[in-house]
């Protein structure tokens, strides 16, 4: 028997895969193309219309120069209002998230029966955007930043609690078990052994949500829920492009500054 023959007895797991490879490739291609085809159909995708609209955009852009700086102090005040909405909204989120994430973290929940409902509740909060919440609250408490703050608070409570509980579930169980076995009750273990371990992570998550909320607050004004978005909408409605340009610049500067600041803080935390 030659070496070649003696080595030929193994069933080759690759053979059937190689034979069906072209078929699987075609099937995948058809599937992906199908999804794109349907999606483009549904969004009414039309390059010709974009081409036709370009001169109008260029015209507006030309009219926007020079930016209108008359109302700089009012607009800055609105920008500060936007950041403040994010601060208060995120804080509301934290206050709601703290008890929820204890129920929704598998290694902390006092009862399996509470775990699933807590998760559902948080998914609902997370599934409804701040924008949608803000719409509802404008109807309930009237126009202004307060409605926006409530919207941000509810939506970010869901996100914060989810991210927090995931961070808590990722903690090494050993040290917690060791602390619990010394006879410490659950509250002591959480306060003494768990919190110092996860606090930097939780703070980092909170800062990230705040940063995210500053960005979403900029558009909440569109539904009348306060912040610089309200000025943005007014300018678009009045076709006041120089003013619009100033507002967009302010938003850019604000969001970039906040992102950098928050990223710097988070680097220092972890």
């Amino acid at each position, binding site marked *: 028997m030659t070496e070649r023959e003696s080595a030929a007895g193994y069933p080759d797991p690759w053979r059937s895969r190689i034979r069906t490879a072209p078929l699987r490739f075609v099937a995948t291609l058809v599937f992906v193309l199908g999804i794109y085809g349907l999606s483009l159909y549904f969004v009414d995708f039309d390059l010709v219309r974009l081409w036709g609209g370009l001169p109008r955009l260029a015209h507006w852009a030309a009219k926007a120069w020079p930016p209108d700086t008359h109302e700089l102090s009012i607009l800055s005040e609105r920008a500060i209002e936007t950041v403040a909405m994010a601060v208060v909204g995120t804080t509301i989120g934290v206050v709601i998230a703290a008890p929820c994430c204890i129920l929704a973290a598998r290694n902390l929940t006092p009862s399996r029966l509470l775990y699933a409902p807590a998760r559902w509740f948080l998914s609902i909060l997370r599934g409804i955007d701040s924008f949608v919440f803000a719409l509802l609250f404008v109807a309930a408490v009237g126009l202004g930043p307060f409605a926006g703050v409530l919207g941000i608070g509810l939506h970010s409570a869901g996100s914060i609690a989810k991210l927090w509980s995931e961070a808590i579930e990722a903690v*090494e169980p*050993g*040290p917690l*078990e*060791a*602390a619990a*076995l*010394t*006879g*410490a*009750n659950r*509250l*002591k*273990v959480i*306060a*003494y*052994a768990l919190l*110092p*371990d996860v606090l*930097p992570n939780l703070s980092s998550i909170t800062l990230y949500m705040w940063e995210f909320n500053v960005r979403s607050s900029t558009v909440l004004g569109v539904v009348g829920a306060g912040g610089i978005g309200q000025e943005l909408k007014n300018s678009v409605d009045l076709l006041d492009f120089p003013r619009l340009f100033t507002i967009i610049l302010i938003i850019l500067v604000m969001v970039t500054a906040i992102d950098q600041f928050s990223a710097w803080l988070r680097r220092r935390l972890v």
Partner: protein
Amino acid sequence: MIVTAPPHEPAIRIVGLKKRFGERIVLDEVSFDVAAGEVVALLGASGAGKTTLFRCLTRLAQSDGGQVFLGEHAMRALDRRQLSRARSEVGLIFQQFNLIRRLSALDNVLVGRLGSVPTWRVMLRRFPHRDRQLALAALDRVGMLPYALQRADSLSGGQQQRVAIARALAQCSRFVLADEPVASLDPEAARSVLTILRDIARERMIAVLVSLHQIEFARQFADRVIGLRAGRIVADRPAALLAEADHRMIFAT
């Protein structure tokens, strides 16, 4: 089988302990004693049932028969409250140290005081003077006082294990259960950890049960050696009488 009489009243007494995982018998009628002040080494290959035995002793795992006495506590008969009280007298040492990484050595030793300090004090991290002194003395005993304020995750493995022993000391444990405490340490660190374990057993009359897989360490640091193989005790001798035949018996596959 030679069974040596314990030198004192047994502190840990294990009687006919049984544990099954499904069909597989993991602990088969395990019985032995550990006296106060005595160091007993549990030798066995991986999978022999050492860790399961440890978990059954503190009831982290439910055993299927037999009884465990830690001092006056009949462990399998306790309710939740009594169990928590009994466990607070047991110092546990783990292979992976199980320190809280971001806390200082001192804060980690204070974990040993959690059971006896009021909850509000724990939450505010305001330990009474007496408890802080106890923790410092424990750190001093294991030679880690100079590192008291250093973060646990900045210490070497051997240093972390000494902090873990200090935690058991601060807890005023009457029993120490150490599951492979030196398995992830270099020989020198391992020797220093085992020396401390043996010395505190003598000084404070603590019953120490320590699982090992190096027979030389067992011979050097233990008073008595229990060989566990496939869930059965196959040797129970004074460490000095441990023979080459025992080694083959315990570790044979």
